[in-house]
């Protein structure tokens, strides 16, 4: 319980600034407060919400926006596939609820916890993320950007440093993990530079290619419970 709160807290902190930015941007797109709330409460997927606002402003139709969202968020399919191997038996009745909160950061935090993931642990981490995201969006809409601009910008780095801080202890322990992280990042940078894949798909290609390479090259039987 205490560990779950501790695990969820950095996500809470990290989600407030982008959530507020979403609220501020939504208001300038002449979206109502309720619609802004519904966006964050029902979709709960950062990048795709910003993209949707941009597409709305360019006048793209409903089908195009929904299709783009599917492409951008499809990486969560792979993240849920991994988490399904880690979930406690007792949590299996609640899959429909637990699946809703699989964001990049929730997935990353959960991945590197020890042992099977219990229902309450997952829900506490997800609620930390969700409350910050929905609360931040509404606050941003109502209050506008009341934090100094430079501070808000600096807080943008928090989500990335969170991911780095999560993976570092594993990188220290295992050369294979370090290799997976670095090759995947380099491949992603190359794919984005080449620019022929739509938003969100460079990450999917990286996960598929690098994990396949991992499955091919990593031969010893990983009876460990955790990820590599």
């Amino acid at each position, binding site marked *: 319980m205490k560990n779950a709160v501790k*695990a969820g*807290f*950095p996500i809470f*902190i990290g989600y407030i600034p982008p959530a507020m930015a979403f609220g501020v941007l939504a208001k300038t797109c*002449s*979206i109502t407060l309720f*619609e802004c709330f*519904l*966006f964050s409460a*029902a979709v709960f*997927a950062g990048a*795709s919400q910003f993209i949707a606002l941009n597409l*709305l402003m360019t006048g793209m139709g409903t089908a195009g926006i*929904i299709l783009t969202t599917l492409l951008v*968020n*499809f990486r*969560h399919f*792979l993240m*849920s*596939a991994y988490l*399904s*191997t880690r979930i406690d038996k007792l949590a299996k009745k609640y*899959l429909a609820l637990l*699946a*809703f909160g699989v964001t*990049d950061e929730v*997935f*990353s935090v959960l*991945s*590197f916890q020890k042992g099977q993931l219990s229902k309450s642990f997952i829900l506490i981490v997800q609620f930390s993320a969700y409350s910050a995201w929905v609360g931040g969006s509404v606050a941003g809409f109502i209050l506008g950007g009341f934090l100094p601009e430079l*501070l808000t*910008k*600096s807080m943008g*780095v*928090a989500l*990335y*440093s969170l*991911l*780095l*801080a999560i*993976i*570092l202890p*594993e990188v220290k322990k295992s050369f294979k993990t370090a290799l*997976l*992280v670095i090759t*995947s*990042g380099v491949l992603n940078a190359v794919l984005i530079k080449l620019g022929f894949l739509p938003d969100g798909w460079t*990450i999917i290609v*990286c*996960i598929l290619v*690098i*994990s*396949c390479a*991992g*499955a091919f090259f*990593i031969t010893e*039987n*990983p009876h460990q419970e955790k*990820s*590599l």
Partner: protein
Amino acid sequence: MNNIIPIILGMAAVTYLPRLLPFLILSNRTVHKRLDVFLKCIPAAAIGALIIPGVLSATPDMPMAALGGMIFTLFFGLWRGGIIIPVLGSVAVTYLILLGMI
């Protein structure tokens, strides 16, 4: 801009389904050893691709600021570990660089 509720609900559906399906497909079966290794590689591969090169656009006017914050996280994380200090510290370092104080 009057048909935004259906857009939101459609987006919610296409975001939720990919998050849900793997749980329904995989959670009650034992997977083949190779698939298991594949799945276990996903978190590290995902985190690598989520950080690089995205972090450079965290502070778009001055990518070095975000990079400076990440360097703090890297060294502090390798030295002492933990999450809260590396994260808050990276924000502080980034802020100081943007202010021109570092």
